């Protein structure tokens, strides 16, 4: 009897958790995304200030920041650290450029056994490919529109 009571209580509690979960999880997700995403950008700012301090011209410093951040994202993914951050941080770890390199390394590692061409080489671009396709294509369209507008100026 006691046992079934306990079971019933557990079930009731689980139902209660389920009901209250969506809204509190949503706020928790948002806070985690904000803090982790912001923190990754603070690291980026640190890298930026470091290279400005070394006397790198302002217009070139972005190259250094992108390279270092992409490296960090890829390395931490390889170590298995980045995916653990991702479970907690959600968009906070997806939206920064470190998330872009995570999206390259994770599937490439996963499909390594399918070979170095169709495994690693192809699966690297499962997510990065579409990002480059839409990003670069839309920038070409921007360039063409900008060119046409300038013709009529």
């Amino acid at each position: 009897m006691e046992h079934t009571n306990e079971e019933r209580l557990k079930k009731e509690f689980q139902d209660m958790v389920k009901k209250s979960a969506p809204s509190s999880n949503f706020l928790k997700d948002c806070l985690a995304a904000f803090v982790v995403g912001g923190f990754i950008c603070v690291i980026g700012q640190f890298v930026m200030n470091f290279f400005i301090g070394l006397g790198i011209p302002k217009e070139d410093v972005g190259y250094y920041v992108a390279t270092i951040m992409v490296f960090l994202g890829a390395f931490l993914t390889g170590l298995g650290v980045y995916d653990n951050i991702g479970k907690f941080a959600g968009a906070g770890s997806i939206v920064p450029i470190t998330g872009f390199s995570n999206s390259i390394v994770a599937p490439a590692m996963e499909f390594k056994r399918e070979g170095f061409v169709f495994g690693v080489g192809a699966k690297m671009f499962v997510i990065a490919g579409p990002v480059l396709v839409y990003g670069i294509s839309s920038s070409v369209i921007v360039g063409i529109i900008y060119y046409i507008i300038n013709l009529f100026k």
Partner: protein
Amino acid sequence: MDYLRAFIVGGTICLIGQILMDKTNLTPARILVSFVTAGVILGAIGIYEPIVEYGKAGATVPLPGFGYSLAKGTIKEVEKYGLIGAFTGGIKATSAGIAAAIFFGYLMAIIFNPKAKS
């Protein structure tokens, strides 16, 4: 001050991504694609520039910053070289990020193996 601004601007961009993920059915891949494309459009119409000036790395490290660089590079090259700049500018401006992503991505995928899912 740089760091506080980077934290707030970068955090806010990620927060927008989180809200989209929780409230719509957008998958992470779609978030990435839409954020880069949004960055290109906002960069082209001049809205993202002031965000970069204020937030610095907070605006350039998130993926809309990648789109912003693509648009900015394209416009700069069109001004300099004409129509061919539409094809050269974007990748020139983002060359370091793209090459680093491919090179380090490949390297890390070769060196490391996936961890057992916990």
